[in-house]
């Protein structure tokens, strides 16, 4: 096995120097997700702002305790979704989930998924898929909560 097929340089870079890390104020929703297999956890906050085309992700901040894959994934996720409409972020989330479920057969589009394409190799390691998905699931949950609160009563 070549370790580099799993741990691509992009992943290691994000792991060593994570982007947007730390918990920031203000925020619209905060969630804490845990991977019960290993005890890894992420606390993640989402801030939305209104725009003509619906809510846009103004900030994602997080505190992640976990392995290189889960930490790098949180970093890549925040890069991808900050500044985008929340609805686009949800579509990216679906794309990334599909990539993780591809058992190594996925052909991700770098124009869509950016640095997240580096995680394609993770899909061959069932024990590690949850690591890559932890932050994404937390983001989806927090964003759904934040959007729910913005719905007009």
């Amino acid at each position: 096995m070549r370790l580099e097929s799993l741990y691509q340089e992009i992943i290691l870079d994000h792991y060593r120097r994570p982007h947007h890390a730390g918990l920031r104020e203000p925020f619209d929703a905060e969630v804490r997700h845990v991977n019960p297999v290993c005890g890894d956890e992420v606390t993640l906050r989402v801030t939305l702002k209104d725009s003509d085309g619906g809510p846009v992700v103004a900030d994602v901040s997080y505190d992640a305790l976990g392995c290189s894959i889960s930490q790098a994934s949180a970093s890549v996720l925040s890069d991808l979704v900050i500044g985008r409409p929340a609805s686009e972020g949800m579509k990216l989330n679906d794309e990334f989930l599909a990539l993780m479920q591809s058992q190594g057969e996925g052909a991700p589009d770098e124009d869509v998924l950016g640095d997240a394409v580096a995680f394609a190799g993770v899909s061959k390691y069932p024990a590690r898929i949850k690591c890559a998905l932890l932050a994404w699931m937390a983001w989806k949950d927090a964003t759904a909560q934040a959007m729910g609160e913005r719905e007009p009563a």
Partner: protein
Amino acid sequence: MTLDIVRIRKDFPILERQVHDGTPLIYLDSANTSQKPRQVLDALADFYERHNANIHRATHQLGEEATQAYEGARARLAAFIGAAGPAEVVFTKNISEAINLVAYAMGNASATGQSGRFALGPGDEIVISEMEHHSNIVPWQLLCQRTGATLRWFGVTADGRLDTSGIDGLITERTKLVAVAHQSNVLGTINPVRALADRAHAAGALLLVDAAQSVPHMPVDVAALGADFLGFTGHKMCGPTGIGVLWGRRELLEEMPPFLGGGEMIEDVRMERSTFAPPPHKFEAGTMPIAQAVGLAAAADYLGETGRDAIAEHEHGLIAHALEALAGIDGLRILGPAEPVDRGAAISFTVDEVHPHDVSQVLDSRGVAVRAGHHCAWPLHRAMGVQASTRASFYLYNTHEEVDALAAGIVEAQRFFGAGGR
């Protein structure tokens, strides 16, 4: 007596496997599940090929042979752990079911108001420890929720021993049951079960021993331990999955109400109510894992013939070697006793700046199979101040070269992730 490792390794066909396109397998995950020798695989095949039938109810030759094989397996396991007789050995799915059996039987006793020493209510206490596997924590939490009893526990010292300093306040006349691991699945710590048994009995309480990590690795004698109940699981001792044992003292099994109801556990069934078979059958509802029981007995025979003292001595050498090799790695913290005294052959550790999942992934790339995570002992990891750990666990078929491969793999993980400026 020393083990002939070359011969032993030949008994385990899987040890010849290569992983990841040509890397020899180094299996250091036996505390998770052990590998199976040819003798056990043959016993399973022989049963299915020649004797397969249901037990205790088939009135034909195969049925008699199957019954004989199953009850013979029970007798061999009784002898293996020093039980007073085969009736003290109840087959279960695994040790989780063995512990749940006692917990649910106590719940049933509490609900019906019968069987005084098993009935629990508000004011009664169950005592466990912080180093237990989840399977010796959660059943007792559930039992306490059902009955209103209180769960209490021993803490763990910084070096991974059971903290018995508060024992006078913990085991009291309110205690109904003390449930502890004989050997920690994470720390390797061997607990002073005999002393705990004496304290429990002095307080009028029962002692249940989780022996999942001790019975596979050392001679265990239930009478010498002073236990009232003791459970272990087949797949960690060279046996098949799907079979475990609850041993209980005869008079306790007679008094204790059943857990699962169904076929074969009854004496008489009427539409209004039923009466139950004597132990052990009272606790074995439905068709049991018959071939697996036969396979487990073959595993016990294999360990017995190999020599459990010799196995324990071999593993002692391996853990002493591993403690020394891992202590020499900068940035590595061993969880649990640093000396190979009252310590089995499982070693859990953390590596600064490299997450356990990443350590185990690098090890796996070199063919070294270990476990990463909290090893079903989350409270223990919290008590030790760590989120997760990597665990290597040794068995009779492991070698000193494999210990060295573990240490080399950890150093490689540090290099790969750039830990400690490497």
